[in-house]
């Protein structure tokens, strides 16, 4: 088995009196696609937000490559090699597709004040590194033809690809995708699915939140199911889909026979 990349231990997150995530344990292994499933409000996005430092954890710890990254700031987590996308597709909507991708690589280069103002050679080199990265990602995500379009004018599906592309531009080892196919029509989903498969082939580990059965059953290697902030089961997709507790959580007691 591949080594563990991300380990979440006994994670709890309270919002006031509400326990949104309640003692969740899981591990993501290098090179796999791991999916978190669960009905609305079961704490999936909250887990992402705690891992990436957008919310502080109430209890429990998060380890990335063996290093404790609990409660680090989002930009530090990104630097460590975890990139993410958001449930409501987030791109810099006033800028062009290319500019969106260039800034995605910002964290891997230096841009000092003096170098910037006096146009030092080092600064120029760093800048062209970001441009090269952006070109590479344009190609990889199939956005080459849209490179000079304003990001806000792209279709929802293309914006999803762009947001994934921006995350990839940070050179992550782990990519967290929050509903990568949310709000995308059925025909266009296969585009995104093949993109995610391509990402896996590149050696980037993927952890995703997914609702659509087609995606959730075919794409991941392993699935974890949450309900009311608790983990109810974990395993191969087919196995999990036949689990009584999962059917109960999704469809209610009467369907679980």
């Amino acid at each position, binding site marked *: 088995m591949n080594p563990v990349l991300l380990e979440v231990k006994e994670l709890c997150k309270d919002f006031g009196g509400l326990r949104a995530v309640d003692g969740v344990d899981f591990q993501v292994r290098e090179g796999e696609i791991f999916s978190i499933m669960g009905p609305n409000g079961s704490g999936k996005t909250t887990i992402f937000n705690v891992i*990436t430092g*957008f919310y502080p954890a109430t209890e429990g710890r998060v380890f990335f490559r063996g290093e404790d990254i609990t409660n680090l700031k989002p*930009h530090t987590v*990104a630097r460590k090699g975890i990139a993410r996308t958001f449930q409501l597709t*987030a791109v810099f909507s006033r800028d062009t597709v290319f*500019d969106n991708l260039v800034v995605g690589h*910002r964290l891997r280069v230096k841009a000092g004040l003096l170098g*910037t103002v006096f146009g030092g050679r080092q*600064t120029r080199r760093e800048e062209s590194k970001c441009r090269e990265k952006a070109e590479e990602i344009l190609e990889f995500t199939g956005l080459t033809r849209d490179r000079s379009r304003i990001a806000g004018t792209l279709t929802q599906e293309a914006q999803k690809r762009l947001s994934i592309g921006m995350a990839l531009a*940070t050179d992550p080892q782990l990519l967290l995708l929050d509903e990568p196919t949310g709000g995308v029509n059925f025909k266009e989903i296969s585009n995104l699915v093949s993109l995610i498969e391509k990402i896996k082939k590149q050696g980037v580990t993927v952890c995703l939140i997914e609702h659509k059965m087609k995606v959730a059953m075919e794409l991941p290697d392993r699935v974890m199911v949450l309900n009311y902030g608790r983990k109810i089961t974990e395993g191969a997709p087919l196995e999990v889909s036949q689990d009584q507790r999962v059917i109960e959580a999704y469809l209610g007691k009467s369907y679980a026979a």
Partner: protein
Amino acid sequence: MRRLIILLLILLAFAIPFFVTSRFYLHILIMCFIWGMAASSMNLIMGYTGQVNLAHGAFFGIGAYAAGLLMLKLGLNFWPALILACIITVALGFFIGILALRTKGSYFAIGTLCFNVIVTVIIDSWEELTEGARGLLGIPRPDPIPLPFGGQIAFTSMPSYYYLVLVFLLLTLLVIYRIVHSMMGRSFLAIRGNEELAESIGIHGMRTKVLSFLISTALAGVAGVLYASYIGFLSPEISDYHVTFEFLIFCLIGGLGTLGGPLIGAFLLTVASELLHGVAVPRLVAYGFLLIIIIIFFRGGIMGGAQMLWLKVSGKGGR
């Protein structure tokens, strides 16, 4: 095309003192340049980084007062005073910045506005240092720069001061241009676009905002120093929040987040208010109406409107 226009404008600016000899017109132009510098520096934090800093007039005033006091009370030369005043402005800017930048959006605007009021009150009431409401009188012009082969550049005449301010204006614009078209500028724009997203791709939000804030205060400080040395007299009103709102209006009318916008705004309004001195319409009321029109019809100000027109004419539209 664009480069040509800019080059011509710069040449024109350098040529003006040769055929404009009226002291009055040169005075207006010098004021345009100084206000243009101040508005451009405000544009860096507000237009490009998306943080509406309403303490900008205070930094202009701090720069002006710092230079004035250093020259009058410590007898410093203009040039060291310029550098020291800049450092003082940035130091105070850092203090205000790290406090105010913890807030976002309109809270940041209100917070900085409060700091602006505080600064003015301090300048007004710390009479032992600043002479309070009596003001600082007799701030000297810059000392001549000696040339290597004898002779010197003096700044006593109107045209010479015009050139001095023009050079500083061009330097300010160059610095802003360089920053905006660099990876640093891209992080500023990212913060403006979506701070959460920027954080998620590894941009340190706080550090980036503080940096932008400090660069803009430094540039405002320089503009303040030039003002102090040109006018020769300072009173606490120069740091007042009304000054901030003048800069704000210059930026909005010219076009936020464009390089030339604040300069154009400063030019139009400074020229208009000087020429319309005799007209009875109160200036701020006129500004108010202008602002309403801009906000409703030309969100991007004059530069934004020009860009839209250009896209339509050239058929590159489709936004």
